[in-house]
């Protein structure tokens, strides 16, 4: 379809408008690119003096921080990826359209919660509570997914009448009271189980039997808090990728006799795989760069430990805490700039990779005849 013809006399003006707009946009794009390049050059330039200080020292100081960054990101991804991808698969392919229209914006709104607020809640409310109720927390973390599975099994064996009354497309709503009951049950059971299995105090047993330390602010807390912050971005991108799988593919699969579940695993996921992958990558990029949650919930101890119950210290948190008081030109200052450079390179690479993969996916959808 061709756009409606404009009267000849107005066409040149429109062309000028177009030119100006295009020029401005191009200039903006080039400006952003230059800014990113300038940041990179500045960081490299400020890191160079470090070479004269000797690199052994800087490696020693920075490696626990790099480890802490990875540990925090890993913990967050372990918590967030299953939840976010599960939610994305369900809401893209199973959920009723009416429910999806409400839930999706709400989940995406979660992204608007500032990191400071999440970190504050995690550090000052969640961490002390978990320290005092460690067994309950661990039980809830294990029991919640299991009880969701249990609900699925019960639904599978239930009669057709029950299934009609509790349709799969509304499971997101009717599972909530079920999960609430299950959490209450777990919280009620936890002290009894702790008494029976761990001699009344799980932390004391961890300490005496395995020599495991428990710090109030630890990787577990950071994982939960940062996972919470990362879920919306992973969910949103993965959901878009899954929902954009060309409808004719899904319909074709189901017309050939595949169940919805089979269509999801054999058609939707392989097709949208790159999109899902890039969603996870962008989530990981955010988890690595996230600062305030780690500052407030991690204890900032530069340790080399793999234990989920011990603290950690990330590159970004170190920069936030130490840079304001590091005298420019000193060793600490250059080390922190080096940390910033490492962080910049990592997030830049991860985000670029994710974006490239997403572009590929978009082209694939166009080839497959997607109608969006």
């Amino acid at each position: 379809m061709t756009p409606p013809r404009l009267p000849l006399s107005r066409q040149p003006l429109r062309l000028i408008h177009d030119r100006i707009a295009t020029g401005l946009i191009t200039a903006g794009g080039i400006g952003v690119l230059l800014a990113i390049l300038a940041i990179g050059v500045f960081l490299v330039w400020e890191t160079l003096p470090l070479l004269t200080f000797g690199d052994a020292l800087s490696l020693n100081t920075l490696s626990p921080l790099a480890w802490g960054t990875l540990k925090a990101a890993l913990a967050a991804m372990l918590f967030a990826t299953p939840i976010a991808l599960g939610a994305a698969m369900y809401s893209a392919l199973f959920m009723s359209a009416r429910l999806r229209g409400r839930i999706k914006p709400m989940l995406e709104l979660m992204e608007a919660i500032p990191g400071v607020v999440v970190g504050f809640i995690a550090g000052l409310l969640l961490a002390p509570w978990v320290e005092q109720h460690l067994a309950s927390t661990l039980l809830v973390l294990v029991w919640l997914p299991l009880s969701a599975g249990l609900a699925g099994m019960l639904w599978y064996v239930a009669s057709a009448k029950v299934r009609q009354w509790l349709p799969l497309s509304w499971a997101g709503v009717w599972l909530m009271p079920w999960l609430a009951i299950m959490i209450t049950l777990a919280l009620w059971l936890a002290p009894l189980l702790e008494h029976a299995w761990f001699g009344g105090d799980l932390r004391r047993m961890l300490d005496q039997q395995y020599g495991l330390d428990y710090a109030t602010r630890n990787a577990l807390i950071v994982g939960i808090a940062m996972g919470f912050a990362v879920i919306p971005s992973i969910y949103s991108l993965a959901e878009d990728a899954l929902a954009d799988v060309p409808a004719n593919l899904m319909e074709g699969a189901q017309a050939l006799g595949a169940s919805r579940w089979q269509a999801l695993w054999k058609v939707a996921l392989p097709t949208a795989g790159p999109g899902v992958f890039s969603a996870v990558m962008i989530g990981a990029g955010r988890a690595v760069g996230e600062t305030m949650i780690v500052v407030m919930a991690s204890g900032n101890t530069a340790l080399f430990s793999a234990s989920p119950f011990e603290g950690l210290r990330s590159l970004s948190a170190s920069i936030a805490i130490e840079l304001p008081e590091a005298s420019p030109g000193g060793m600490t200052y250059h080390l922190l700039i080096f940390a910033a450079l490492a962080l910049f390179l990592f997030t830049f690479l991860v985000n670029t990779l994710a974006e490239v993969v997403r572009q590929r996916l978009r082209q694939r959808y166009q080839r497959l005849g997607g109608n969006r």
Partner: protein
Amino acid sequence: MKGNRLTRHCGRIQRCYRLLVAIAWLLCCTVAVGQPTSVSGTLGAVGSDTMAGLMLRWGEALDHRHPDINLQFQAGGSASAPTALVAGTTRFGPMSRPMSDTERQQFIERYGYPPRELKVARDALLLVVHRHNPLASLTREQADAIFSTSLDCGGLRPIRRWEQLLPSEQWPYGKIALHGRNLASGTHGLFQDRALCNGQFRRDISEHPGSSAVIAAVGESPNAMGYAGYNHLNSMVRALPLIDDTGHAIRPSVATIQDDTYPLSRDLYLYVNLPPGDTLPPAEQAFIELIFSEEGQQIVQAAGFVPLSQAQRQPPLLAP
């Protein structure tokens, strides 16, 4: 339509005229009246964020006494004060630790005379534990053995667990969870210098960006111990008395901090860029007078620090 525009025009001219008259009037007033009676000006200060609250309150009191004086304080940490003094961007540098020799040398190289050092208030570092913790007191060797790896204060072996401090108690047990300040803060440096005999900190101390965060972390965790500034003490935690060289347990209080018997007490400083033999301009002088007045020292107490004892309250820069 036309008439309307005309009146609007008229109104604008009239307003301009009134404004001009007002400005002229104001100028006359300031020239005639402002100069001799009141002190005015803007004071700048750059330095310690420990003292930020104190400087703010002093600034308010100064504003109350002399409405024309305006104190602008920039909190960038104690390390920022010497930098700003040397650069000449400020005359006042509040610091929560004494200037180091290199910092003093830099100042002398730039100006040819040392900065004037004023002790404006007293402060102390506290060792705090959870409010229900039964531990009675600590020796300085124990404090060092808990927080350091180097044991420079004379302890024999590191103390890692509560059982080593409280052998018969059922609670608290297990590892001592340690909390402290971040590397670049003056509190961290002072604790390292005074409590660890300049030794090395353990690596597993949780580092917090502020003393109140340390107090909050210790207050919510029964097996924790931490160090923090005196002004952040609250009822969530208990400050441990320290046993001095003569074997007496010294509780941190206003009296023991004032006369320096509490081992971890310190001065808070205000460094002033003043050439020897010169006097300060009146606005700066008014600020110094306020600090050493009864009102100024009450503000010190209100800000959570310890005021100077009567003998220490001589304002040393008063005009001859």
